[in-house]
């Protein structure tokens, strides 16, 4: 019974308001298409990319710094030209987006899980637990993601054996970016929980003896998912940017498996060299991807807020 109520609520939401808002918003349609293309391209990069930029045997230094294919010295094998090592720019962008999106999604999911769990507990249990969690949140908020990531990266490099550095860097990034984002989820969820837990249906559920965990999961969680999705979308954009910034500061993923941010950092060294494609294409790819995600988040916020309609 509860299931069907819940399902119909979600279905109604999608079928009516959100969907209609989506259909009427060209910005939302375009940005979602862009995002999907990016995800698709990244996910299937090994099958779609014209060359494999991580295959050391295939890379030839003599192919380095070739301009895009349509220019005079261009090579048809490399549509967007090559970088300083002879890797095709198009392929590195596809593989790079894969890493950027992985870091983005993984850190968002990480902070979502932590944030929602702590927010639910904080709001539902209240009292000392609530005060404790919220205080930690305050402390956490005082440190920007970048500073936390710099700290954690340093610690990780010290603890982890040297030969594993390259393998763990990406998880350190996910953890660092994720851990600095949970507070927003926790606060939002806590707020909604406080409202929901005093509503009659929750009271009723409690009276008939449904366990606390079940109540939280079945009744309260679905009601807070709307705002959480909005935060998650914007957080995804922030996570991708943060990863790029950390790469610039030198604590990003290793350059042998570059993310979009690492590609831009490398490209920076070619800003004055006339080899504009090494900088411009990865930069444009990053901006377009993040912009699309941001626009989606923006639209979602308005669409889910019935007051603004």
């Amino acid at each position, binding site marked *: 019974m509860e299931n069907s109520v819940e399902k119909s609520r979600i279905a109604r939401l999608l079928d009516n308001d959100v969907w209609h808002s989506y259909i009427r918003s060209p910005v939302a349609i375009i940005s979602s298409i862009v995002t999907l293309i990016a995800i698709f391209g990244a996910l299937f990069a090994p099958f779609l990319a014209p060359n494999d930029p991580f295959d*050391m045997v295939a890379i*030839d230094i003599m192919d380095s710094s070739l301009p895009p294919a349509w220019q005079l010295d261009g090579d048809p094998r490399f549509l967007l030209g090559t970088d300083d*090592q*002879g890797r095709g720019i198009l392929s590195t962008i596809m593989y790079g987006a894969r890493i950027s999106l992985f870091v983005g999604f993984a850190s968002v999911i990480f902070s979502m899980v932590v944030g929602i769990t702590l927010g639910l507990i904080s709001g539902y249990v209240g009292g000392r637990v609530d005060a404790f969690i919220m205080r930690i949140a305050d402390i956490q908020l005082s440190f920007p993601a970048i500073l936390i990531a710099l700290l954690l990266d340093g610690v990780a490099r010290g603890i982890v054996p040297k030969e594993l550095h*390259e393998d763990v860097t990406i998880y350190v990034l996910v953890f660092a970016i994720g851990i600095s984002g949970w507070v927003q989820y926790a606060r939002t969820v806590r707020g909604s929980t406080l409202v929901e837990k005093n509503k009659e249906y929750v009271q009723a559920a409690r009276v008939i003896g449904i366990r606390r965990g079940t109540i939280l999961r079945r009744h309260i969680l679905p009601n807070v998912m709307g705002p959480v999705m909005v935060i998650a979308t914007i957080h995804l954009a922030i996570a991708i940017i943060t990863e790029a910034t950390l790469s610039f500061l030198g604590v990003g993923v290793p350059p042998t498996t570059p993310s979009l941010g690492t590609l831009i950092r490398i490209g920076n060294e070619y800003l*004055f060299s006339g080899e504009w494609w090494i900088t411009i294409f990865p930069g444009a790819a990053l901006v377009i991807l993040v912009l699309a995600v941001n626009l989606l988040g923006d639209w979602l916020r308005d669409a889910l807020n019935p007051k603004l309609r």
Partner: protein
Amino acid sequence: MKLRHGLMVAAAAAAIAVAAPVVKAETFKYAFQGNLSSLDPHSLNETFLLVSLGNIYEGLSIYDDNLGIQPGLAESWETIEPTKWKFNLRKGVKFHNGNDFTAQDVVFSWQRALSEGSDQKVRASKIKAIEVIDDHTIIIETPAPNPILTSDLVFVYIMDKEWSEKNKTASATSASADNTGNYANLHSNGTGPFKVVDHKADVKTTFDRNPAYWSKIKSNVTKVEFTPIKEAATRVAALISGELDLVYPIPVQDWKRLDEAEGVKALAGPEARTIFLGMDQSRDELLYSNIKGKNPFKDIRVRQAFAHALNLEAIKKKVMRGAATPTGLMVAPQINGFVEELNTPYAYDPAKSKALLVEAGYPDGFEVTMDCPNNRYVNDEKICQAAVSMLAKVGVKVSLLAQPKSKYFGKVLSSGGFDTSFYLLGWTPGTMDSENVLSSLLSCQNKETKTGLFNLGNYCNPKVDELTKKVGSETDQVKRNAMIKEIFQTVKDEYGYLPLHQQPLSWGVSDRVTVSQRADNGLDFRYVVVNK
């Protein structure tokens, strides 16, 4: 203050007017990627710091713009016994505060360079004793015959004894807390052609011309401003926009742009630094490899296979944009002991390389990790990446660990226990003599004799060690060079190291100035001229 400053400028201008008809104050502004961490000449053994301070302080001998040894604070010298040198000190030289330069200052500075906290102990310990004959004559005794003493003394800068003692800076600035606020760290008083008027470490340092300098110099500059700028793009932008007269280093790929831009150009030249790859040849099993129970690099055929797998021309052309000099020797042409006929690099021959690997018992190659710095040498990380790709083509799978220099050196140097199997390193012998390379890089690791401490892979041949010892005390240049040649020949035949190239000096210069680019990447203000 203001008035005095004006007078000084006027005096400086008057002094220059003798050489060239200049009256106006000329300011020269430049930037380097690193910073001037201290003004104390004995605080840090780093080329940039030493060369920069060489504009304020001087040694008994000095380098000219070709790194030739010239008389500095010593007018002349002679060897009276194999271990005894007589130095005639220059008369009439004054420190910036007006004090006279005498033999006592030399003794004091030598002792200070040996003091706790000094990073110049190695150079200072080339002197065993100093005997003062009179105010302007000293006899220096060396622990062993040392044919290159005057090279060793270039960077042993002379400070004013009276000034140092008055300001309680009689021992070198050290990092330990018991030496708080060392005066010489932030203040200076040398004999050089320029003096520091304002110094904020890591922000800006301003120099003024020393009007009382003892020698005529080429420069017409009256004021110099130095700013450290870490980001290469910011450096290049500041040059092109006309805010600075000189920035270095600049990325080699930006040369074309600089030459196209108006009013600036790239200034390139060969640096005396040799970049090479080294292999762990001493452990019975490599630390970072999939081959267990034996060390492939102990087999000369494997080292040979590596040598023939590297395409130095491709690295030169593509990574270094034509700006490197591929080399077969561990020293550059500017270094004493360089042997032209040994300088041909190992031939690029991947087929031969593969065959050698098969012969050595690795038909499918093997895996090894390579250590590489990413902010120390010109395009260091890119060279490593290129090498990885070249070795992949003969079947050797190299995983690259590229790190900032602090982490890299912490791992591979003796302090990290030589924790590497395969690495890239660069080396400039500070004395401009091969002996430094022989004892630091080619001798067996030996903590007692302090030799081979930068021989990270411990290439070890007792015959080389023995010859190196002889080179250290041989004063006959011809015999000495013959022994140096024999060592280089041996190391080359044994594929002890894989030399790659001499990296280029890469400066960006405004057309407003003419500068002289020294092979140790040093900027000497004496040769900076603002063009009319």
